[in-house]
């Protein structure tokens, strides 16, 4: 055992380091990831230790980052791309959706693209526009991509290594406003000790209602569960972890016990992940449901100016309000 207390940011850093030690084909690419260590310092020290050949400060062009990563992957490398902020992935959208996602299918399985695209996502950091977005549904909607999001230091450390080890392309969403949250990580453990990458997980057991969340909203949901407990309500919180494929088993099990489900995400609700989860739960658990599945999400507007984000973002009160509505049904 070598349990350390790490922030999510540091746990990603140690995870990247492990992956680079394990496989010298792993290379990192992105804007400002070298000397600066990335604007969030996730790659801090890695260029110093692994050299400029493996930690590459790229020209300022996201389509270029992802497009050349495809070529490097074809050549046997395992590129890990950093997109500086969620709102800057769109110049690479064509490369991701038309190329990354479809290469294997088009080559009838002759090639796989073992690449990872890391994206710090979500709001709550008081940033200017394009720095607080939640674009995960665009990618989860696209066949051929796997999409995950971590919510704790432990998951950050292991999931990034699993994503890099995966032969499929993985879009890896990092909850940027939680980068500084701390938690225990046993960095001596190998990947076999970690939960599978594409599994969801009960992070707080409960009996009265189920909350499903991922990324930054896991903490919000856990805080809501703590507050609800004071009012005598026991909420079960599930961290989805994988957004594509979805691991619905633990969600169905939970809803069959509680009869109530609230899905929470920062992204706008319209045609979002919450809708998919709601549809599946309705199909699988119809007779167990005591109330319709409710969603607590960002509003269906562009992400607003930062002085409005507190109202825009789902918070503890909005989660509890939805729980109340579920019980009031």
């Amino acid at each position, binding site marked *: 055992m070598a349990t350390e207390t790490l922030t999510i940011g540091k746990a990603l850093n140690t995870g990247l380091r492990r992956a680079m030690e394990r496989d010298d084909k792993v290379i990192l690419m992105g804007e*400002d990831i070298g000397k600066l260590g990335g604007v969030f310092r996730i790659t801090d020290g890695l260029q110093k230790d692994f050299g400029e050949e493996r930690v590459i400060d*790229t020209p300022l062009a996201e389509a*270029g980052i992802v497009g050349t990563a495809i070529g490097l992957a074809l050549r046997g490398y395992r590129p890990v791309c950093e997109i500086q902020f969620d709102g800057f992935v769109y110049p690479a959208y064509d490369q991701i959706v038309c190329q990354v996602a479809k290469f294997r299918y088009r080559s009838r399985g002759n090639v796989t693209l073992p690449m990872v695209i890391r994206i710090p996502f979500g709001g709550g950091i008081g940033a200017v526009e394009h720095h607080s977005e939640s674009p995960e549904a665009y990618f989860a909607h696209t066949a051929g991509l796997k999409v995950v999001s971590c919510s704790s230091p432990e998951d950050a450390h292991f999931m990034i290594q699993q994503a890099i080890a995966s032969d499929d392309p993985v879009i890896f969403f990092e909850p940027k406003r939680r980068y500084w949250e701390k938690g225990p990580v046993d960095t001596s453990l190998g990947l076999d000790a970690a939960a599978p990458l594409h599994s969801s997980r009960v992070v707080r057991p409960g009996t009265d209602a189920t909350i499903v969340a991922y990324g930054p909203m896991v903490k919000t949901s856990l805080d809501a569960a703590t507050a609800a407990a004071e009012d005598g309500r026991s909420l079960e919180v599930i961290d989805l972890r994988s957004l594509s494929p979805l691991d619905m088993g633990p969600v169905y099990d939970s809803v069959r016990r509680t009869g109530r489900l609230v899905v929470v995400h920062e992204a706008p609700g*319209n045609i979002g992940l919450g809708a998919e989860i709601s549809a599946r739960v309705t199909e699988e658990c119809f007779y167990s449901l005591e109330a319709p599945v409710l969603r607590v999400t960002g*509003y269906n*507007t562009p992400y607003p*100016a930062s002085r*409005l984000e507190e109202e825009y973002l789902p918070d503890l*009160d909005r989660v509890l309000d939805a729980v109340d509505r579920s019980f009031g049904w």
Partner: protein
Amino acid sequence: MTKGEPAPRRSGATRAGRSGGTPPEPEYVQLLTPSGERVNHPEYSVDFTAEELRGLYRDLVTVRKLDTEATALQRQGELGIWASLLGQEAAQVGAGRAMRTQDMAFPTYREHGVLYTRGIDPIMPLSLFRGVDQGGWDPVANKFNLYTIVIGAQTLHATGYAMGVAKDGKVGTDDGEAVIAFFGDGATSQGDVNEAFIWSSVFHAPIVFFCQNNQYAISEPLERQTRIPIYQRAAGFGFPGVRVDGNDVLAVYAVTRAALDNARLGQGPTLIEAYTYRMGAHTTSDDPTRYRVSSEVEAWQAKDPIARLKALLVKEKAAGEDFFKQVDEDARIEAVSLRERVLSMPDPDHSQIFDHVYAEGSPLVDAERKQFEAYMASFEGGH
């Protein structure tokens, strides 16, 4: 301001500028050395009166003072972030003053100096940096587009706008319109910027691409974006490129004025590379000590754009101590006013979240607005 003669069509190469005894400078157009000596250039010149020179000096000082004030406001938590133009005053004032009334600018997030010289109230972009809104001004009425944070995107918008100018028949005469797109050295790597070069060339758009090469894109030095001088890229796209000493307000003015006039007269695009230096951090969130050495910053300090114009004014007896004092005092007063207006800027009303999503409205947004208002009302009187 007087106007420099529109330059004849050029092949793309420019002649060497002279430097005032400092280490070899890159080839660029320079009309004023760092020590304040005038330089003759075969193609470019200015014939400013003493009053006009004083006006430029006032611009430079004011723009720097307002910028310093904004940085201080961010440090005190009054702005969420600030992208300082420190060191780039001459590039921005020169380009801004070179524009004619009818010309349209497409800025990045750093063009506070251009904005100021367009006669726009410097408070205008501060709501964006304070987090009150996302700019919110009318880009067309101001002839100054919204600040654009997504690197390079505005160069295509500028190109399209310029294509519209041409379609409207507003080129070919002295009162024709020209468009100027601002971007950084980092932006030159973006597909959008390269596409803008192609489109403007193919459609012969009345546009000037004004690249402030401040040597860095956040932490990445210029060499990460290009192996040839940026201005030389223009040749491959089929229009002239010229490099100018970006810390020399006279040269920037002359070169930009000529390029804009060429555009308005129907001679198509020009790429200007204003060779300058970002003296401060990329933004207030950045820590440049991680990627550059202070000796480099000090070397550029010696090329300060304000000091050299001041030296010229003194040398040519165009201004005295009283004037310089007065300018400082006036700039200070403007900065105080800016501060006061930032501090008294009201927070946005919550319902602004739902405003202006669609021109024709949306049942979904309308329904959410109602739910939101009911939800907020539920807190009144204790929840």
